[in-house]
């Protein structure tokens, strides 16, 4: 009986931490591969200007995490600033006629999901 209980507990412990594995192997790779497109939108949103100190810190933090391929380096990242600047980039393109309203819906949807993903990864 004791051996059965021990076996079950060991098996359960081995199966746990599924959340960590899902973040590392399912979600993070997609966030990392989407980042260049989001970053491009941020650059457009800055309209040639320099990012604020806050924005630069957030951008550099994500860049660093992607370069190191370690989502744990995203801890504490200000994803709301990333989200705001990326959305502004889409608006700039729509205002300049570079993107249609229909295209902007798709671009914004990607940004929305990117931000949701950042929240899942950082727990914020």
């Amino acid at each position, binding site marked *: *009986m004791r051996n059965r*209980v021990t076996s*079950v*507990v060991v098996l*359960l*412990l081995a*199966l*746990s*931490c*599924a*959340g960590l*594995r*899902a*973040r590392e192997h*399912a*979600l*993070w*790779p*997609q*966030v990392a*591969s*989407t980042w260049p*497109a989001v970053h491009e939108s941020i650059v457009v949103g800055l309209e040639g200007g320099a990012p604020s100190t806050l924005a630069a810190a957030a951008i550099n933090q994500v860049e660093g995490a992607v370069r190191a391929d370690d989502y744990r380096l995203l801890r504490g990242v200000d994803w709301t600033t990333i989200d705001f600047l990326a959305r502004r980039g889409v608006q700039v393109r729509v205002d300049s006629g570079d*993107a*249609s309203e*229909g*295209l902007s*819906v*798709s*671009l914004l*949807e*990607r940004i*929305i*999901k*990117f931000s*949701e*993903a950042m929240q*899942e990864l950082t727990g914020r």
Partner: protein
Amino acid sequence: MTDVIHDLEKLLTDAIAETGVSLQKGAAELAAYAAERSAHLATLVDDPGFQEAVRAERDAVALEAGITAVQQADAADARIVGVIQGGLALAARLIAVA
């Protein structure tokens, strides 16, 4: 002792059943989301930015799949913790009556 073993087996069976339902629901919701994004893309076929929209929607669906996977995994972890806690409580009962 038989009662304790039966209770532990029920605990595991219930957790597995809940996980199955949760996985099915997650897959269905993801499929619905992908269909919704495809429907939007269909409206952009003649748009000069169609290819860019395809890439954006592809990324959005892939991110949603990852988010769903994490939420499912977190729920599974919570159930496992619940099973272990339940199992420990049952084991304590076993020791108390031994």
